[in-house]
């Protein structure tokens, strides 16, 4: 499937200046005498973008070269041609619809359960303190000073517990994972059992017998709160601290172009490790560019198309499996023997491409540097003096953009990045650079090297829906040699993990006075 949609937003924003550039270039090619007209970059015209709305990064299939001639060559202009969607957009929309329905139920369910448990835990000590007053007020001993001091301690500990539980459990979730988080479930069960046992003891020994010793009851409630704080401490260790110490080194490879990174992770379950890796992916891996893979695909296609196998012996002679086996063997043998010159083509093609990219880059750098000289930042005093032709950053960006637009567009097309940057985003970036006093080199940096996926606009993040494919259960922990896949729409990330080895270190003491040296020369001189 060839989704190499060569798009750039300029096709519909074909401003007059760009048109005049192209026209100037054409005329220069045809009539070499008219060289002066082509240098129309200096006279800048500002174009307002046309009012027709485009669907974000909608892609148009077709060649850019026919930009100026489109009025003459297209026979019909239908309403859909400007609102066409690419394959990527369709997939993205369906994915967005899918994931919004299913997981929400589960999230709300877990949230509700957690809130109920929290309320139960929070209200239990209060209930322990209040129930004696309600039920057998007359028999109760009065609360002395020590007892009232314990009230304060209960209050503050409950407050700390409340804050701590909120901080650990009730923050907005970063991601939705396929299975429940085992440690949280275990902790919830532990807390439930714990509170249940306390209630059991309380109801049997205190409620039934109607104990008058109120101080003892208060101390019992305090001990409950203390134990809950300790359980919270255990929760911190299990949930947060345990995975901090690096234990495994995981190697993440992107399946389409082989980009590899290594990360250090602690002891995590496979799903949490996958989550950590995806977060690193968005920050570290350069953006996935399917346009760069077409060359190797075409080479592979040529290999396959080169040989055909005919079955001369007639049908029904051999068993099907044996036939296929011998066929493939024959193909491999023939391919090995064939004198293939595709490596030659590859070498020259790559050299040619490299040269072209460098030439375009040189033109681009010069155009941008020249464009930046047209603008000067106005100082405060001058602002008061000449309020004439003053522009804010956005207008200034629009003013100098046309002079570098063509060079930039050609460079992006040569490096096959044109679908990553829309004209709007380029102008925004230019305004940003102008505002922050950046040099032309700083402005160009984001176009010369492909950056991490987060750097581009949101619709380039393509998949926020990832599928974890693993042979082991996803709630089991990472082990040495674990392999799993993180699949998204266009590519998958292959992850392998290796355990960091156990290190046995011994010490050796060196006396500082023992550093003595002697020359080890063995010269022999003839005299």
């Amino acid at each position, binding site marked *: 499937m060839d989704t190499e949609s060569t798009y750039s937003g300029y096709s519909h924003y074909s401003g007059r200046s760009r048109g005049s550039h192209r026209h100037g270039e054409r005329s220069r090619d045809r009539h070499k005498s008219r060289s002066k007209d082509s240098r129309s970059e200096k006279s800048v015209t500002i174009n307002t973008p046309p009012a027709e709305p485009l669907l974000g990064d909608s892609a148009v299939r077709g060649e850019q070269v026919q930009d100026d001639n489109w009025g003459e060559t297209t026979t019909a202009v239908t309403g859909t041609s400007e609102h066409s969607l690419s394959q990527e957009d369709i997939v993205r929309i369906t994915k967005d619809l899918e994931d919004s329905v299913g997981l929400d139920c589960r999230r709300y369910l877990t949230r509700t359960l957690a809130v109920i448990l929290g309320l139960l835990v929070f209200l239990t000590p209060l209930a322990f303190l209040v129930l004696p007053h309600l039920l057998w007020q007359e028999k109760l001993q009065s609360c002395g000073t020590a007892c009232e001091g314990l009230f304060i301690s209960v209050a503050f500990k409950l407050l700390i517990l409340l804050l701590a539980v909120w901080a650990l459990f009730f923050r907005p979730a970063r991601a939705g994972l396929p299975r429940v988080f085992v440690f949280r479930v275990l902790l919830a069960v532990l807390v439930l059992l714990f509170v249940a046992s306390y209630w059991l003891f309380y109801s049997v020994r205190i409620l039934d017998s109607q104990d008058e010793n109120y101080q003892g009851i208060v101390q019992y409630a305090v001990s409950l709160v203390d134990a809950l704080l300790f359980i919270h401490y255990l929760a911190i260790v299990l949930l947060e601290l345990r995975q901090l110490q690096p234990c495994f080194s995981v190697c993440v490879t992107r399946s389409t172009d082989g980009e590899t990174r290594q990360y250090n992770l602690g002891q995590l379950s496979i799903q949490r490790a996958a989550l950590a890796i995806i977060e690193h992916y968005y920050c570290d891996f350069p953006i996935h560019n399917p346009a760069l893979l077409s060359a190797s695909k075409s080479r592979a296609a040529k290999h396959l198309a080169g040989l055909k196998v005919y079955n001369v012996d007639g049908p029904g002679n051999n068993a099907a499996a044996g036939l296929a086996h011998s066929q493939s063997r024959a193909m491999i043998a023939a391919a090995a023997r064939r004198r293939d010159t595709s490596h030659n083509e590859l070498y020259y093609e790559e050299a040619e491409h490299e040269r072209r990219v460098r030439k375009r880059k040189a033109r681009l750098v010069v155009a941008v540097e020249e464009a930046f000289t047209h603008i000067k930042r106005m100082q405060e005093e001058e602002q008061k003096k000449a309020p004439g032709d003053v522009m804010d950053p956005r207008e200034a960006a629009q003013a100098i953009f046309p002079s570098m637009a063509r060079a930039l567009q050609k460079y992006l097309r040569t490096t096959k990045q044109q679908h990553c940057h829309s004209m709007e985003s380029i102008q925004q970036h230019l305004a940003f650079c102008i505002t922050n006093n950046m040099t032309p080199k700083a402005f160009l940096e984001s176009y010369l090297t492909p950056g991490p996926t987060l750097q581009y606009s949101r619709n380039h993040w393509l998949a926020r829906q990832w599928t974890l494919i693993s042979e082991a259960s996803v709630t089991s922990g990472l082990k040495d040699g674990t392999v799993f896949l993180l699949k998204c729409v266009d590519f998958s990330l292959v992850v392998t993990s290796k355990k960091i080895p156990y290190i046995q270190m011994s010490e050796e003491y060196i006396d500082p006075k023992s550093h003595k040296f002697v*020359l080890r020369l*063995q010269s022999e*001189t*003839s005299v």
Partner: protein
Amino acid sequence: MSFIPGQPVTAVVERIEIQKLRQDGNLILGFSIGGGIDQDPGQNPFSEDKTDKGIYVTRTSPGGPAEAAGLKVGDKIMQVNGWDMTMVTHDQARKKLTKKNEDVVRLLVTRKSLEDAVKKSMNPCYPRP
């Protein structure tokens, strides 16, 4: 040939006089030296005591003046023209041997066979022929 630090060194020496030969504008003696107080004495194949940092003859060129004068490989040079060679660096020894204004060097060399010869002659058990 071993010495006790602080005590004077005694050795049986042979006096060898070598005439320098003029070859290609240089005055050569026709042997090579090794050793010196700045060298590693453990690597000396000719010394008995591996802490001996004296100057030893490591090679004699065949037909050269040194061989003609009777210098042998493994000899330890004790003096050159009166200059002491038992406590010098390798470079100092080379300089003392290759002075351009001297035509002849008078060496005092010692070797194990000399000691043995003297001991044998002094030993009264062996009857003299």
